[in-house]
Each structure stands twice: as C-alpha cells, then as structure tokens.
C-alpha cells in the first residue's frame, strides 16, 4: 500500500499560507471596508471596482501581473533583493503577497456589507457621545457585525486554501516551500496517480464543507441570540 502513504506537507503549507494571508488581510481590510461603508466620496465606485477585480480576473492574469511586478527585473523586486536580500517570487513570501491580492475582495466585501447594515443612528449616537470614528468602529461597529467578521475570516481562509492559478504562477511547485495542496493534486493528476488525487481531493472537499457548515451554524445561532429582526 505504498502509494497510499499520505504526505501532509502540502496541506500544512496550504493552511499556513491561508492563516497568514487571512491575518494580514483582516488588518488591512477593516479600515478599508469601514471607509467604503461610510464614505460619500465620488471615488468610491472606482475603489470598489479595483478591489473586486480579483473576483473576475482569471487567476493566471493576476498571477502574471504579480509575477511581473515582483520579479528581480522589476523595480519593486530589485529593491527588495538589493536592500533586504529577499526574493519575492518562487518562494513562500511571494505566495503570501499574491494571496493577499487574490483574496482581498473576499475579506473586504463581507465586512463592508456588515458595516453598511448597521443602524446609522447608532453610529451617530456614538459620535455625539464624543467618540472618534476609530473608537466607534472598534467599540460599536465591529462587535455588532460578528457574523460578518466570521464570514469574512472563513471565506478568505477557505478561498486562499483553494487557490491554484495564482500560486502556480508566482510560486511554482517547490515541495515544502510553494507546493500547496491544490498544486499537489494537479501534479498527481498530471502523473496519472488518480488514487492519491482522489484522496487529496476528498480531504479538501470534507474540510471545506465542514468549515462552511460551521460558519452557517454559528451565524444562525448568533442571529437568533441577538434578535436581529
């Protein structure tokens, strides 16, 4: 049964990448989605369109641009290589940067929707209590959109675990460095090792389903508890 031996490294790498990406995006997306939900700026549709691009762009296109922008031949890539001695492509760092771009809308959109659904009067009550926009966001808005926060975190995590095209473009398939689960499955199929491909795919399927089920169960309970009408 040698062919059924399971190498967990691609899964661990997928989860490490998804965890780090989700953490970084959470910090970046909160101020941006808060701003988008509150602003009356005319530039809002433009910012929204740019931030939603990764949803509609083929991952290979996004991956190609990121590869182009971060490679040693580009100013950004050259700067990091010369100043810090860091390479930004075909390694784990490159994957994180690419994933942050790729999963950006999946973090921003649920948060923005959550912030927009809040009672404006409640936020105004906080301003009149003398609280700044930041304090209002942190102490009133965020605690009142817990289901949206959870959705954003899980969807971003799951989406990053499931990414393939961008990862392949920017990271390649270096075992233990950039070979994540989705890429591993692709390679099994390519080498016609269907047994392993089946096993890896089934694990991904079960995990993805469990995560989503947990989110919806939590949201159903939370909605009942706080009595949202």
């Amino acid at each position, binding site marked *: 049964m040698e062919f059924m031996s399971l190498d967990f490294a691609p899964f661990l790498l997928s989860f490490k990448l998804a965890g780090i990406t989700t953490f970084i995006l959470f910090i970046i997306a909160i101020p941006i989605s808060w701003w988008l939900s509150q602003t009356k700026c005319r530039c809002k549709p433009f910012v929204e369109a740019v931030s939603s691009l990764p949803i509609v762009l083929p991952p290979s296109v996004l991956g190609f641009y990121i590869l182009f922008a971060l490679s040693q031949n580009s100013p950004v890539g050259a700067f990091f290589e010369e100043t810090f001695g860091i390479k930004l492509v075909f390694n784990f760092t490159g994957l994180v940067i690419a994933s942050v771009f790729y999963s950006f809308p999946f973090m921003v959109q649920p948060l923005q929707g959550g912030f927009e659904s809040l*009672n404006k*009067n*409640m936020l*105004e*009550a*906080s*301003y*009149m*209590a*003398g*609280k*700044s926009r930041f304090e209002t966001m942190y*102490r*009133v808005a965020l*605690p*009142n959109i817990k289901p949206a926060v959870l959705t954003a975190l899980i969807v971003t995590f799951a989406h990053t675990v499931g990414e393939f095209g961008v990862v392949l473009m920017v990271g390649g398939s270096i075992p233990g460095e950039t070979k994540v689960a989705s890429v591993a499955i692709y390679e099994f199929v390519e080498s016609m090792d269907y047994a392993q491909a089946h096993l890896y795919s089934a694990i991904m399927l079960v995990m993805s389903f469990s995560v989503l089920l947990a989110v919806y169960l939590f949201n159903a309970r939370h909605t009942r508890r*706080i*009595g949202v009408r």
Partner: protein
Amino acid sequence: MLDIQIRKTLLGSAGSMELDVALSIKEHAFVALAGKSGSGKTTLLRILAGLESAEGSVKVDDVVWQEGKKVLPSQKRGIGFVFQDYALFTNMSVEKNLLYVCKDETLAEELLHMTELTALKDRLPSSLSGGQQQRVSLCRAMMKRPKLLLMDEPLSALDPEMRSKLQHDILNLHKTFGTTTVMVSHDPSEIYRLADYMVVLDAGKIVKKGTPKEVMLKTQGSQKFSLRGELLDIIKADVIYIAVVSIGQQIVEVVMDSEEARAFSVGESVLISTKAFSPTISKLVV
C-alpha cells in the same frame, strides 16, 4: 441662549425646498418642533447636532458651533440626542450603554434609578420593550449632563400608556438637569404637557411660534372649545345624519342635517366646536 440662523436646500418628495430658520431659544426652555412630515424638522435637529451641514450660524451662549466655514464636530458639542428608533448600542448591556458615553457610575446609577431601570441594568437592549429601550436612550443622552437635549419624535413608536409615563420621565430629567430641550413631536397633548414654547415649520419656514396655548388653543368667536378630528363615517338615521369623528384616541358622534351630510366627505379633517353648553369635567373612575 441658543441662536440659530441656518439655510439649507433640501430635496424632498415635492421637489427642492429651502430650509430657512432664524430662531433663538432661551436657556432651560423646552421647545417643541411641530409641522407636517417633510417640513424640515428632523433636518433642523440634525444640523443642531452637527450631523448635517448647512449655511449660516449656530451659537450657544458665547460658543460658536457653526459660522461660515467653521463647524464644530458633533463629538465636541456635548449634546444629548434621543432617536425615534432608540439607536442603543446593541452589543452592550443597559448600564454599559450609559458608561460608554461617560465613565460616571454614580450618575448612571442615579439615572437608572430615576427611570426605574435599575433591575434591568445588565440586560441587552434586544431583550427590552420599546418603552424600556427609549428610557435607556434618554438616560444615555443625559450622561454628558448636556446643555442641549435634542429629541426626534422620541415617543411616536410607543403606545399611549407608555408615552405618558415617558413624558413624565422626560420632564423630570429636563428639570433636574436644567437642560435646554428641543423635541420634534406631532402629538398636541404631548406638546401641551411638556413644552413651554413651540415652533411650527411648514416647507422649511417657521409659520407659527409661541406658547403651546397660543399656538394650539385657537377658538373662534364665541365658541367655548373646539377639537380637531377626522371624519370617519356618515351614517343616515331616519331623517338626520350622524357623523362619526375620531378625536385623538376617542370616537364621538355628532348630528348633521342632510345639507351638511352632503357638504362633508369621509376622511376630511374637521373641527368640532360648541358654544351653547358649558362642558363639565369630571374625574375618571378606573
């Protein structure tokens, strides 16, 4: 002393409208702001709160809240504001709602005691009734010991019994804290009970102002009293007609002749008045 001189173009359902209000309000006054919906009452209140922009000036005593380009943000006005929909912080308990505004536990305790909410202080807003939530909102608005208390139809979502209880609480807080209060209201009895001055807006302009007695108790000629109501039905009874009129929360019947019955139509606003009889007043035995 609150000095208001503001202008703003509003886009209403009936096209654009110019809100143009010049008003000065004495310290410790209780002013009711009345008028049809869409007349600019809420906008005026929100401009005072710094939630909306307008041209002109707003001054409180010697402090300029707004003049020319200078606008003091809501955060620095130190006002209390009560919304029609309560707008409590749904993630915080009753007591935390108050303490969020100002960490003065003694004051919070005193306010909750005054409004009989002490037993509910650890509950979340969603578990309270409308009347209880609005009392919490009132308490929250007082936590800054505001010089100016603004209320936007605070009681219109509540039933009559709860209204009269909250009217008592509002008056009590207004007097205890010596605030200047501006309240948007549609309810004549509420205005009469609470306010010592009233302003009626129509299409963005002040059309009447004075004490509630001067503005609302208008009887013509020798009429002893008159009541506004809505004509609900005209019933034919033998040779006469009976008009069914709703006045406030009550339904009354008035006799009409056939000519009058033809002149009125159901749904109209009508005035019921009498001069020949002197009305009697007696206590309600409950």
